[in-house]
């Protein structure tokens, strides 16, 4: 797929999202003209772009949708829920069409029929629906005598912006017939000054079409900002052409010649025009009077004027110019390189320390500080707000609640919270499962809710915030909550736990996340096939995250997903046990203490009056090397809880590039990843939370084994 097409597909997907978001907002009763305009603009942009990339099937389809939206906009049609539903379906269809385009395919008969059906659902009675053939053929003879004159000079950067001047001609051909055309290349400079990437072209076009001026102007939407465009309506007076001649950069006789050549003017008219023009007073203070005041042409106004006149909108556009679209893989490459740079920097520092040269050490220190800044800036480039992901769920909630005859609203907070793009991409599926589950199993029917003394309309809430180096995403509902007895009964039936096992509340809730578990009484096609929640858990774990659940029966449930901010580079705290180096995420470290009573068999210590449990990593990892004279405890914190980790040596902090571990370690808990040290050795990154939990489970298990020997609790 060529680059222009790729850009079109991606931009259209974004427009489609905007379109859908607008429709959903309208559906919620936000009848704001801006929203409707936004929806229209989105459809229009897609159509325009499709014209540029010459994708007829999208142009044709979007054209009808656009007509409907236009009718809504000018008030000739009323918005209604069925119409919104039909428009949403059209938006789905467009998404399918974009998929096809991406695969360089064309819609098959079935897809076309589906499209036609969806368009028919829009019920455009008055608008003449252009069928594929109608759009492609020139207008009938009766109209073809309406000759427009289009004069266009493309901006120097047109080609650089990925536009092909010829594609505009193709697009014009779809709405009418190009009767005459002259290519203007007078701007072409001498070879020495010629910029091979510049565009020096212009066209004078005699155009027969029934389209209105706005539609013709729209053809040039993509280059409008930097091209000189004049459109003279049919049956205009000669004066208009005089005005045009004045506006164009070429000399009047030359342009007059062209106009005659194209067929816009006759020889006689030209003579008359040139004569009139020469009689007009010309001086710097009083330029030629605006002969064609009646002209509805598009002036090319200097940018500063646009900004002044359009005020806010001008600023908005200026802001847009400051953003740059970059291919994700280029960014990934940069992050990879920065990662390598961090590692190389670490080995340089190590070497400098070994050599003991102060000046060299100083230089490497400055370098590592710079590398750190580069790392932070590079990672920031990949940060995106989670709001966009959240907003997509308005549609899901709307469709599902309709399907299940429930009333549900979606509340979003923390939409501006940023996280790594690679995480955002992978979080969508788990969120989808959670939302489907919440609507299907959580939220009750309006009748049940009223009977329980709750408002008929259920609520699902998304929230996101940062918490000590992680991002927390919450999905909560005010539905029925979890019935512990039912969960336990089902778990026993499925053999997940034994009947005589006593489980804590959290353990019971965690059963919901086990494979093959479903509490819904009946299997619906929304959720409840018993796959889903365990997939959610697995997906989140593969992102080095975790999911927790809280639920109050009768009041609702809350899922908390905790994810690392980035998957690439962290600040690490290096520690050693015997000869091995391990790394803890620095933001989980609270304090370091000397481990005093190593001989004690208790696994807690007095931490400022708090009984702090600790894990002896040497034992957990089964390292049988001789104990060093001094051991250290690192106090770590996660999700508000504290624990200690006992290690031999503290090596200090350093940047850590996370290297993924093979998928063969996917079920492993306690190890979050690996990194490569300055010495070239691989060191493991510890997952603090999982480690402490692992130690806790082991202790609980060994105690419960003493109590009931038959326990085999899934880890």
């Amino acid at each position: 797929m060529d680059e222009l097409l790729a850009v079109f597909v991606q931009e259209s997907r974004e427009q489609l999202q905007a379109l859908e978001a607008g429709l959903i907002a309208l559906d919620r009763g936000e009848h704001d003209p801006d929203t409707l305009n936004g929806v229209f603009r989105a459809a229009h942009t897609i159509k325009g772009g499709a014209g540029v990339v010459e994708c007829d099937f999208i142009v044709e389809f979007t054209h009808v949708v656009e007509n409907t939206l236009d009718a809504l906009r000018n008030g000739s049609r009323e918005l209604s829920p069925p119409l919104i539903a039909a428009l949403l379906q059209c938006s789905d269809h467009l998404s399918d069409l974009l998929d096809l385009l991406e695969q360089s395919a064309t819609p098959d008969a079935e897809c076309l029929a589906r499209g036609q059906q969806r368009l028919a659902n829009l019920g455009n009675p008055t608008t003449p629906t252009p069928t594929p053939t109608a759009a492609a053929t020139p207008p009938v003879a009766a109209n073809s005598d309406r000759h427009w004159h289009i004069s266009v000079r493309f901006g120097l950067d047109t080609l650089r912006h990925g536009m092909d001047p010829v594609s505009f001609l193709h697009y014009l051909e779809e709405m009418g017939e190009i009767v005459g055309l002259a290519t203007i290349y007078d701007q072409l400079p001498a070879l020495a000054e010629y910029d091979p990437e510049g565009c020096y072209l212009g066209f004078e076009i005699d155009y027969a079409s029934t389209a209105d001026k706005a539609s013709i102007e729209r053809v040039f939407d993509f280059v409008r900002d930097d091209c000189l465009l004049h459109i003279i309506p049919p049956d205009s007076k000669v004066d208009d052409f005089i005005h045009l001649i004045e506006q164009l950069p070429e000399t009047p006789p030359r342009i007059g010649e062209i106009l005659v050549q194209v067929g816009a003017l006759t020889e006689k008219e030209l003579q008359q025009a040139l004569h009139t023009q020469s009689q007009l007073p010309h001086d710097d203070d009083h330029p030629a009077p605006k002969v064609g005041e009646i002209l509805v042409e598009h002036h090319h106004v200097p940018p500063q004027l646009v900004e002044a006149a359009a005020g806010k909108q001008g600023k908005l556009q200026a802001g847009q110019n400051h953003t740059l679209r970059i291919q994700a893989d280029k960014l990934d490459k940069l992050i990879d390189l920065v990662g390598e740079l961090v590692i190389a920097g670490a080995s340089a520092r190590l070497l400098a320390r070994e050599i003991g040269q102060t000046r060299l050490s100083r230089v490497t220190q400055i370098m590592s500080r710079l590398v750190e800044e580069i790392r932070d800036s590079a990672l920031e480039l990949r940060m995106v707000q989670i709001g966009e992901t959240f907003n997509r769920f308005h549609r899901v909630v709307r469709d599902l609640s309709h399907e299940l005859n429930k009333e549900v609203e979606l509340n979003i907070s923390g939409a501006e919270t940023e996280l790594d793009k690679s995480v955002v991409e992978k979080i969508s599926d788990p969120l989808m499962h959670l939302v489907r589950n919440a609507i299907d199993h959580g939220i009750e029917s309006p009748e049940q809710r009223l009977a329980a003394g709750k408002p008929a309309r259920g609520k699902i809430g998304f929230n996101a915030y940062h918490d000590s180096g992680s991002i927390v995403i919450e999905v909560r509902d005010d539905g029925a909550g979890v019935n512990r007895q039912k969960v336990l009964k089902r778990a026993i039936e499925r053999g997940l736990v034994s009947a005589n096992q006593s489980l804590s509340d959290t353990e019971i809730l965690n059963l919901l996340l086990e494979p093959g578990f479903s509490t819904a009484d009946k299997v619906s096609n929304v959720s409840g096939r018993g796959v889903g929640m365990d997939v959610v858990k697995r997906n989140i774990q593969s992102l080095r995250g975790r999911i927790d659940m809280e639920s109050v029966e009768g009041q609702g449930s809350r899922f908390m997903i905790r994810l690392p901010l980035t998957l690439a580079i962290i600040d690490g705290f290096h520690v050693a046990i015997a000869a091995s180096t391990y790394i803890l995420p620095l933001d989980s470290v609270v304090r370091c203490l000397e481990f005093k009573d190593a001989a004690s068999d208790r696994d807690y210590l007095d931490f400022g009056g708090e009984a702090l449990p600790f894990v002896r990593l040497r034992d957990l990892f089964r390292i049988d090397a001789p104990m060093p004279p001094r051991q250290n405890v690192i106090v770590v914190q996660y999700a508000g809880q504290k624990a200690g980790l006992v290690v031999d040596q503290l090596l200090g902090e350093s940047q850590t590039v996370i290297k993924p571990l093979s998928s063969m370690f996917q079920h492993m808990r306690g190890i979050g990843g690996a990194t490569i040290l300055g010495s070239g050795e691989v060191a493991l990154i510890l997952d603090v939370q999982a480690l402490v939990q692992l130690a806790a489970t082991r202790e609980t298990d060994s105690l419960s084994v003493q109590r009931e020997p038959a326990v085999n609790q899934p880890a």
Partner: protein
Amino acid sequence: MAKTASSSTPAASSASSQYLLFLLGGEPFGIDIAHVKEIIEYGQLTEIPMTPDFIRGVINLRGSVVPVIDLAARFGRPPAKIVRHTCIVIVEVSHGEGERQDIGVVVDSVSEVREITTDDIESAPTFGTRIRTDFIAGMARISQRFVILLNADRVLSTDEIAELAALSVKDEAN
């Protein structure tokens, strides 16, 4: 049509592949050279706690972290002893939907690369090799001796290893 014809005639005598032969606990084994990416010296291995014995650890292979498997332990034999010629064969296995992954394999020594025709390869006996039959792609007769040709994708199946690793974590818990 052509595909069925060629695959249904095992006696297509021209078919042959190259195999890397190596020794493991004194016994010769072979692996299709198409899977082998490189052979490196044994060294600088980082052990991973709480994993089964046959996972030796991970190494830094030019910036990537690559797991290293002890084949002997994987076959249920005692772990390989590190000797003078011990090396790590980097093998590429397919994993899931078209994904490929590098895995290091500890061997006592590599012997040679040899062309073996399909005629010289027999199927494995149902038992007697003391190695799971699905690990064996075939038995080649080379100079009066049988060489077990390994099925790399099965022996080094990351999914299976991951499950075993998960089990070992649980076992340690009890």
